[in-house]
């Protein structure tokens, strides 16, 4: 398991700033067990800022124990890095597939793109850097693909700049033993694409089914109270895969009431019998979107 907190630019006003944020994501994936396929068209430190409205991309492949061998379910993640039309703001969108890509075109079951940031918000200060949090199951020596969390530009000045993505394989749990299985992959996102975009979708193992339809919010637990605090505890509200039934909830992300957490703090939740640290955030792109209003997210950071 790996967690990285970086401070990256949120503008494309210079090559250095462009390489800062794009390269930051790419470097994290590369250093923590994700396999970069041969299908990419960006080299950080070399590739210039794309033209207005254009993207470059990398395609990454899962590399965990469920990605090879009998019953394997490898999947592909296309990360597109772009430049907004008018203001040199970053654009970031991510798609997933069960088959490999050719010249950026994914094959098999495909879901996305999930627009984390469409760039259509006011520009950040050139050269300024903002907190970015990345977490995955892999390490430099252990392949990744079971889980990924990406929270970009949490501290950016622009209210709609922060964006979030969580990816996690299906979970098996018998009351005492936790493991991942190769049935499907759940993707949830919170970002901005002309408006707040909260999304959830399932990428099915192609041997089991086709992918589910995009949901316009997260399948989590609601509360109409201003706080869920009770008996000196604040509940972690899980996000559930929706696959024709309610399956075991994700560990990569949960939700909470905004009033119950302090932005940017680390909090602990016990899931499936194991304690994990979570980063709390209730920025505009999910505060006003997740479960309608006044909610925050908890991103796993171990």
């Amino acid at each position, binding site marked *: 398991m790996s967690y990285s907190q970086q401070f990256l630019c949120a503008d494309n006003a210079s090559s250095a700033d462009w390489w800062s944020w794009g390269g930051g994501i790419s470097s994290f994936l590369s250093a923590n067990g994700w396999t970069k396929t041969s299908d990419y068209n960006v080299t950080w430190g070399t590739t210039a800022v794309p033209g207005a409205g254009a993207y470059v991309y990398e395609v990454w492949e899962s590399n965990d124990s469920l990605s090879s061998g009998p019953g394997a379910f490898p999947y592909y993640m296309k990360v597109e890095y772009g430049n907004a039309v008018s203001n040199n703001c970053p654009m970031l969108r991510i798609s997933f597939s069960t088959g490999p890509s050719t010249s950026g075109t994914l094959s098999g079951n495909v879901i996305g793109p999930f627009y984390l940031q469409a760039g259509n918000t006011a520009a950040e200060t050139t050269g300024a850097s903002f907190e970015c949090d990345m977490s995955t199951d892999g390490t430099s020596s252990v392949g990744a693909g079971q889980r990924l969390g990406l929270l970009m530009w949490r501290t950016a000045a622009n209210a709609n700049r922060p964006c979030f993505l969580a990816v996690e394989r299906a979970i098996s749990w018998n009351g005492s033993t936790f493991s991942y299985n190769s049935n499907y992959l759940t993707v949830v996102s919170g970002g901005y694409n002309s408006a707040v975009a909260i999304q959830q979708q399932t990428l099915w193992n192609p041997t089991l089914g086709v992918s*589910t*339809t995009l*949901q316009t919010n997260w*399948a989590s637990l609601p509360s109409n109270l201003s706080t869920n605090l009770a008996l000196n*505890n604040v*509940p*972690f509200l899980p996000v559930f895969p929706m696959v024709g039934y309610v399956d075991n909830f994700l560990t990569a992300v949960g939700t909470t009431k905004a009033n119950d957490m302090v932005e940017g703090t680390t909090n602990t939740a016990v899931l499936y019998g194991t304690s994990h640290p979570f980063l709390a955030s209730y920025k505009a792109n999910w505060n006003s979107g997740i479960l309608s209003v006044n909610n925050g997210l908890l991103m796993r950071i171990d």
Partner: protein
Amino acid sequence: MSKLQQFLVADSSTLANFIAWGSAISAALAGMTGLWTQTNDTGQAVWTQTVLSISATAQSGSNTIFTYTLTSGPALRVGMSITTTNCGTNNNLTGTITALGSGTFTVANATGTTQTGLSGSGSTTVVTLPATGTVGATEFWAMSDSLASTCPLVMKIQYGRTAGSAPYLAFTFGATTNGAGTLFGNVTPTYSNPQLSGSSPSGTGSALYECDFSWASGRFGMLLWRDLGGAATIFLGIERSLNSSGSYTGSYVTVLGVGMNNNSNSSGPFQLTVPALGTGGPVAIGIVATGYNTNNCAWATINWFGPTVYAGSAAVSPVFPMIGYFDNPVTVAVTMKASDQAEGANFSATLYGTAHNYLFTKSGNFNYLMPSGANGGVSGMGMRWE
């Protein structure tokens, strides 16, 4: 596990109708052996008069012990009010039964006398028709399952008549009572159906509507006037805490309600946790003040913003106790997207590795069990039906 389906009036315009639906609920609870036991609190409702023949009395200190045989009506219960006549000097009274023996009952009566060869009689006092907008009868039922001593719960039920002469029901919960009609320990707010005053639904006369009861040790579900719909259909579900295997524990009791937003015409879902004594006070979520069509009231169940059917399977969402953390889900009720199931349908859902049967309703009150956002008003509920 047991279930009971009855067809009851939804009307309090006459004493007969008031007794018809009130006594049916009371009788259903009385029949749930091993789950509910009526307490001995004084002042509780008597739906059917009990008539006795009294043959003797014995004075014991400041109490009079009456020897009787039952002429008609239900058995006596401690706490009942009884009136005796033709029982000899100082023994004709109206008092509260404080103890029962084999063919005897005891009433406090300091000046009573010992008598034999009596041709006396006794009778209990039955409920009367409440005035519009008032409560007419009260009962207290204590959970009496194997976890009752670990996590006691008493349910206070008030039966009444709304401004429009529709049934009025109110529920309050606590750990115990003082024997005289007052709850103690972790006492919750009172949740009632929205019909006592204001623009409430009216009674519907002699028409009969489906009322469903389902229970087992540790679990109770009651769905009243299901096919009347709108604001009139209400639900109450009660279930003990569960471990990860689905076995009951004594940590707390979860109470779920629908259609009980007090005097408002709101859909009125509420979720309540009553912890075991000494572990904290009641925790309530989900009740809102006003607005029948509110999109801001909820149970702790999964909100449906997207498609719920995949590969022919319609997702069923559990309801999770919320007690500072989310715990293992209850089985007494589940939610579904309204469009995924027909009103009144029976369906199966698997919880804790076991398939259970559920009865579905999606009448007006049940559309708002979750916050709705852009796709609001879409939920329905399954009550465990086995």
